[in-house]
């Protein structure tokens, strides 16, 4: 068998395509049938009636329509076939051909043709051929119908899901357009392999790109991109939480699975729906920063204080001396934050066309989104389109084609403008000012010859960056999927079905950047400016799935069994190319393809293949005792020969107690009581390929000898990361399921944790080992979900409520000492530094630091009067003295090179061990970054055609290091500070919590509880009004449906947190830290949807 996997697959597809027509090309004696079609009620002749010849296996073999006189002629293929007549507004009829050669039909008008058909069937859950009734789900799965957030203005579904699902914690990375969110289902069960859940769209895993050319934002950008499915297209989302349900996804299933089902075409006349949404977003007010006048006064003090030296503070930029040549540029009150922010506007258009007949159904949608960010220079637009088409060749054979296309053009800012704005000195001007103080047209940059500290001096002009620099990412993604479903027996009683799909995912990213010299103060021929770079990533992912499902029919209908065998394979090819050139002409050639000096170029390719076999069984008895089994065996090319294959079993069971006879008495109020135990193993593999080989790469040359060097360690020992999880669930329903509880508790243990880029001793010749299995970690938690459907119902008025909350507790069981050491560095006596301890048996995210006790009021201790001075005290608060009776001074890090004697106005830290020295021995536990609980609640009020939905999400009990505030209050460098520092200590006796200003000196901002804040919050996430115009009013206009909605997003955050937004991203191992990312904007959306 030398054929590649791919070509073998094609052969099978070909076989299938070729064989089917043969099979149905049966014996036939053709002839002609003709006739006239009229309306039964008034005898009117009907033109354009659809006539189809249908074979006994319900395949359409021929078709025609009636002419203007209602007459038709058709050459039939077989007399055994029948003719079917259908016409809009009339009931469908059919006639067997047999010996008839003239068939005249009178069609009956159908009064109900346009009315909705109510289908009463058991709701099924599953993908491909393996579908089980929803009530028989024995694993931890939560389903969200998109109706729940219909009309919500969200850039992507992750925003809409936030707070909706117990155990699914979603945190927005920042408010920048396209920056996306991080998701964690039941906490992170991995260290730094991918921790994001797997997304599955219509049964096909949706690839998260790993190799991004834009390294800094890689996972976030890609993740956001991945979720760019328009919320309008989503029918339903299932969140799979326990391993018994995720085991079938094997690789990456360890992080949980989000199964997205998109809407499909429906039978009936073609409908067109158009939606327009308009959103206006504003940046929430962040820290209030100093104006130029207050700033310069602060700076002069900060420079003077360390050595009480006037000349140190004699800096022309702070002096307001008209004799200074740049005077006009340094006498301003610039509000940089205001300069870089703007009102964000989003226009979102979306058109959907859907319809279909008995044989073919379609749904095609397309949209255009245009967004201006809340920071200047941010602009994104996105074209997206999705098509779903299914065609039944016969009752037994069905083809389904899906196609999605997204084209995003995201013009981002080059660098974090908001951050620059918060730090840039406010007395400097945006534009160069002439001698009389008027703005000229050129941007002003502080001269590189200025004596200001380099950090401030070289800080670029953020307004200039937005205007002149480019940082665009263009993404282009096409995902065609072809499916085939074939009923092998054709008999309902012995249901054996073959399903397959091939899905291609073509994803191209192009990042182009240009950084002009006008935005900085460096020379124009520097390698840092007039520099363009371009990076391309091309990915092709091919996924195939072949499976057979068999549902034997038992005589005793109490038994129900489904068996399934699946074979899957994936191939992913990635190519990255990057190039950077400098010394271009700013303004004219800003593209990396232009002729400049080549700074660097890179290219890399990678191929990863996986393959899996899977067997599944689902058995239920009386739909009351239910058991499911899964066994998946998956192999991945990223592992070495010995560890390539992993086994991922899953077992789950469910007992619906409320269906038992003995529960009959409680049936009136207890409509559902079921327990669901489950167990399973899921796996995680490294993201990179090729690490199982000792690789040699070319390394330029020496003189004229081409050089080659070994480039990596061979990972012969690397194994799958496996998560073993137990889940105990319970379903409760009261009063005919008007109140529904869904409860889960779980225990997950991840072994062979994967760790990326572990530092190894460089004496090995390598800096890092790309992957290593480093230990074991536990996640324990519980989830509670509660729905109340129509708890209040009075006339046209009704109310729904929902609530969920969850908790996840993470424990490190054992970790490689090297990993622990890496995260447990020695204390370095630096300002702003918090210690984080990673220890076996403890959770991560703990924050350690000093206790802050305010500011020393006086410099010199004076018995009886100036008590509050920096002197050492014993346990009882008595002053420690030296042999002469002099009070001993309070020191920092006594006996080290960092030794410092505290003075009046310095920060006062608690001397825990009363040794007169503030050092690492005084560091205490300050809290943990992991929330005790998170979740959401909300409700829907309905009154006639008006809906009002509100939703809140919350987090409780997590601590955040407010680094943004720390940097805005430390008075340590030239950065602008918040107005809080106006309350700083200035002279002996001042009573304040803000220490004195000390430029690059002292220890006034050690990592202490001063900057550790409670991150608990409740966010009023949205309030939405939705009004459907009554159909009666629309009918005369020929319009089906009009709905109008008004949506307020992010209305208010109830929190004690003093920063802009307590919702900061995960801090990984360390602590979560608020670094002043663009906060989530407050916005409102006005939407209009018209259906024709």
């Amino acid at each position: 068998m030398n054929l590649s996997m791919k070509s073998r697959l094609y052969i099978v597809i070909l076989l299938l395509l070729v064989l089917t027509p043969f099979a149905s090309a049966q014996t036939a004696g053709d002839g002609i049938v003709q006739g006239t079609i009229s309306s039964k009620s008034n005898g009117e002749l009907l033109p354009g009636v659809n006539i189809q010849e249908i074979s006994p296996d319900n395949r359409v073999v021929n078709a025609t329509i009636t002419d203007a006189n209602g007459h038709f002629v058709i050459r039939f293929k077989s007399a055994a076939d029948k003719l079917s007549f259908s016409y809009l507004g009339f009931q469908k009829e059919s006639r067997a051909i047999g010996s008839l050669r003239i068939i005249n039909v009178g069609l009956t008008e159908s009064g109900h043709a346009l009315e909705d058909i109510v289908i009463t069937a058991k709701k099924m859950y599953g993908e491909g051929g393996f579908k089980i009734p929803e009530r028989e789900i024995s694993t931890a799965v939560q389903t969200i119908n998109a109706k729940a957030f219909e009309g919500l203005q969200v850039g992507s579904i992750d925003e809409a899901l936030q707070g909706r699902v117990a155990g699914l914690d979603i945190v927005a990375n920042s408010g920048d357009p396209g920056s996306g969110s991080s998701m964690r289902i039941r906490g992170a069960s991995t260290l730094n392999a991918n921790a994001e859940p797997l997304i599955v769209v219509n049964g096909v895993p949706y690839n998260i790109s790993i190799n991004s050319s834009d390294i800094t934002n890689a996972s976030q950008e890609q993740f956001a991109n991945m979720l760019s499915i328009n919320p309008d297209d989503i029918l339903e989302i299932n969140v799979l939480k326990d391993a018994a349900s995720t085991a079938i996804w094997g690789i990456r299933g360890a992080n949980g699975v989000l199964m997205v089902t998109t809407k499909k075409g429906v039978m009936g006349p073609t409908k067109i729906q158009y939606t327009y949404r308009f959103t206006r977003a504003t940046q929430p007010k962040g820290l209030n920063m100093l104006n130029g006048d207050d700033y310069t006064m602060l700076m002069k003090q900060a420079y003077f204080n360390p050595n009480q030296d006037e000349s140190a503070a004699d800096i022309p930029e702070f002096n307001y001396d008209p004799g200074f040549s740049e005077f006009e540029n340094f006498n301003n009150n610039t509000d940089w934050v205001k300069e870089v922010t703007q009102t964000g506007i989003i226009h979102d258009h979306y058109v959907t066309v859907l319809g279909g007949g008995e044989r073919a159904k379609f749904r095609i949608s397309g949209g255009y989104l245009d967004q201006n960010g809340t920071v200047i220079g941010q602009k994104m637009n996105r074209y997206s389109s999705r098509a779903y088409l299914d065609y039944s060749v016969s009752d037994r054979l069905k083809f389904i084609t899906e196609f999605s296309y997204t084209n995003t053009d995201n013009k981002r800012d080059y660098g974090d403008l908001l951050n620059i704005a918060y730090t840039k000195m406010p007395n400097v001007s945006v534009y160069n000012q002439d001698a009389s103080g008027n703005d000229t047209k050129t941007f002003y940059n502080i001269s590189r010859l200025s004596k200001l500290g380099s950090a401030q001096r070289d800080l670029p002009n953020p307004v200039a960056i937005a205007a002149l620099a480019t940082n665009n990412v263009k993404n282009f993604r096409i995902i065609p999927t072809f499916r085939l479903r074939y009923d092998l027996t054709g008999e309902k009683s012995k249901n054996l079905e073959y399903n397959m799909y091939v899905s291609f995912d073509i994803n191209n990213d192009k990042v182009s950047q240009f950084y002009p010299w006008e935005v900085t103060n460096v020379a124009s021929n520097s390698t840092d400016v007039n520099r363009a770079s371009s990076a391309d990533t091309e990915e092709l992912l091919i996924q195939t799935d072949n499976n057979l499902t068999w549902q034997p029919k038992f005589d005793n209908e109490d038994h129900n069994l489904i068996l399934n065998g699946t074979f899957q394979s994936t191939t992913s090819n990635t190519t990255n190319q990057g190039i950077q050139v400098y010394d271009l002409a700013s303004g004219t050639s800003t593209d990396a393809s232009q002729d400049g000096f080549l700074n660097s170029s890179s290219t890399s390719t990678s191929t990863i293949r996986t393959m899996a076999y899977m067997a599944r069984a689902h058995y239920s008895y009386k739909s009351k005792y239910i058991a499911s089994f899964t066994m998946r065996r998956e192999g991945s090319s990223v592992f070495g020969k010995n560890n390539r294959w992993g086994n991922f079993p899953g077992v789950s069971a469910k007992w619906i107690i409320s269906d038992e006879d003995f529960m009959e008495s409680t049936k009136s109020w207890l409509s559902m009581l079921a327990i669901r135990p489950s167990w399973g193993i899921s796996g995680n593999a490294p993201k990179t390929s090729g690490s199982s080989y000792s690789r040699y790469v070319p390394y330029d040359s020496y003189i004229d000898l081409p050089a080659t060097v070994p480039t990596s360690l061979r990972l012969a020992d690397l194994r799958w990361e496996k998560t073993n999880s137990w889940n105990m669930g319970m379903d409760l329903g009261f009063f005919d399921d008007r109140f529904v509880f869904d409860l889960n508790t779980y225990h997950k243990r991840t072994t062979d944790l994967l760790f990326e880029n572990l530092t190894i001793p460089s004496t090995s010749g390598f800096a890092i080992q790309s992957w290593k299995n480093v230990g074991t970690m536990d996640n324990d938690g519980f989830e509670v979900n509660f729905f109340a459907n129509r708890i209040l119902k009075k006339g046209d008025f009704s109310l729904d409520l929902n609530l969920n909350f969850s908790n996840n507790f993470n424990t490190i069981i054992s970790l490689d000492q090297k990993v622990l050491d890496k995260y447990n560095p020695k204390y370095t006596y630096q300002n702003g530094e918090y210690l984080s301890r990673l220890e076996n048996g403890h959770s991560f995210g703990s924050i350690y630091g000093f206790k802050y006790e305010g500011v020393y009021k006086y410099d010199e201790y004076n018995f009886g009067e100036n008590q509050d001075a920096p002197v050492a005290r014993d346990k009882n608060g008595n002053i420690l003295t030296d042999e002469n009776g002099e009070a001993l001074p309070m020191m920092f890090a006594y006996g080290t090179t960092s030794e410092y004697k505290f003075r009046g106005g310095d920060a006062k830290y608690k001397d825990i061990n009363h040794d007169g020295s503030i050092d690492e021995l005084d560091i205490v536990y300050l809290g943990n970054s992991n929330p005790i609980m998170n979740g959401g609640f909300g409700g829907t009020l309905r009154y006639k055609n008006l809906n009002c939905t509100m939703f809140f999400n919350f987090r409780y009990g997590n601590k955040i290091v407010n680094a943004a505030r720390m940097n805005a209050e430390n008075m340590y460098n030239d950065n602008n500070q918040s107005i809080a520092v106006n309350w700083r200590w200035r002279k002996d006796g001042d009573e304040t919590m803000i220490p004195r200003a000390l430029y690059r000196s002292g220890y006034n901002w050690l990592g202490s509880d001063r900057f550790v804040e409670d991150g608990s919050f409740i966010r009023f996430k949205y309030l939405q009004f939705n009004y459907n115009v009554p159909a009666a009013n629309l009918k005369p206009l020929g319009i089906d449906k009009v709905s109008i909605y008004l949506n307020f997003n992010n209305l208010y955050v109830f929190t004690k947190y003093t920063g802009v937004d307590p919702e900061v991203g995960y801090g990984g191992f360390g602590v979560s830290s608020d670094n002043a990312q663009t906060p989530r904007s407050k916005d409102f959306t006005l939407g209009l949807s018209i259906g024709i």
Partner: protein
Amino acid sequence: MKNKFKLLIVAILLLTGASSCSNWLEVLPDNQMILEQYWKTESDAQNVMAGCYRGLIANDVTYRMLIWGEMRSDNFIKGDLTDVDMVKILGQEITPANANCAWGPFYSIINNCNTFLKYAPDVLKEDANFTVGKLHAMEAEVLTIRALSYFYLVRAFKNVPFITTPSIDDSQDYLATQSTEREVLDSITNDLKVAALYAKTSFSTPAYTKGRITKNAVYALLADIYLWDQKYDDCIQMCNNVMADNTLKLVGAESVINDVFYEGKSSETIFELQFNDKVQINYATRNLYGWSGITRGGVSFPTNLAPGKQYSPFKYSLGSGMYESEKDTRAKDFFVTDAVSGVYNIFKYAGLARSENTTTNVSSYTYRSNTSNWIVYRLSDVILMKAEALLQKTGASDFENVVALVNKTYQRSNPDADTLSSLKYSGFNDVQSLVLRERQRELMFEGKRWFDLMRLARRSNSTAPLVSYVAKTTAGNEALGKVSVMNALYWPIHKNELIANPLLVQNPFYNTVTSSTSN
């Protein structure tokens, strides 16, 4: 119908056939060779050998050769440097956090060498053209590159892990303990003795002969090691081996800047790393010394040591109105006085040519625009190593011969002056400082000075003589307090290295010192 069904089943079974598919998961990396497929031909071996050389011209490595060899010495003060770590080195403020004490770049070369030494012999079986003779010649080059790397490490850190096995996969133990300086010096000396047997005398092109390891390069390195190791007889022997080669000649004084440092591959060079603008720019000399783009480098020559100044090695007063090195061409060739700022910019390596107006005696300087090579050993160095060794060996008994050796380089640059006479130097210390002074004048900015001063300190087991030199720059007393003990002369092991390998023992001098300032 039935047939079709069977066919389908067969097709699925074929598709899922486990045995045929296990190969499918064997994905070889694109555009990369793997160990199992490598080491088949002579060129495979040669390419890895070239990789060892390529490592020597990597940025991190040349920077370290320069920084470890000279940055802490009295030859530099801060010029245009902005790199905080380097500024701290100039002030002797060195902590385990300083990026320049990371030793990884040298171990990367060592690992390449170890890989070559392990696998290259396998090629003998695979490639008939690859003879034992060729293998030995290449091994000699690789052994020498490895020895040179270890010699830098030993001089910088004293006790370092000595590793001779290649790192192949994750099952090996990478937690290495340190070997003593003694063990490392003995091992590399033995390796070099082998290399000296098999190394070639010369190659087919000048670039190879000067840019690759020859017998002379092995001798010069051995001489340097013996001198460091205070084995003066052996050192003299090695120097004699080099000096016996009459193809090595000092160029004329007027050609030094152009031939030796601008063009490179001169007749006095023994081993010179060959840079190429297209492959690797020598950023160490370009950024720290300057070039036509920026004539003022990161460091400059101390004003206190400029000709005519109190501590200058040039126009050095011998008392009673007599001067040594009064009109030394090197004082004009190797650095430039910036008339406006009074800064002495470095011209060696940065320059292309100096021309002197014969009437005004004012020099004009032309800077290079291409990248420079980096000389590891040249003849002057070897001559003066011999002078140093001879003096240490013979003590006061052979001043004449020592001074005669010094005269070889001195006279070239002081053509109009009288030869130095041993009579003018009235004792061992006088002659010792003359040798040191001549080495400073001749080899300044070549990454030698700090090691020269360390040898001085090691001989007396005291930092005092070293401090007396370093104190002559503008460095304050605080800085000098930081070189008060012998251990302070070595570098700390980088903090990340200690985290990665708990078996490493930090230089005790740095154990208690923590960084005193923060950003």
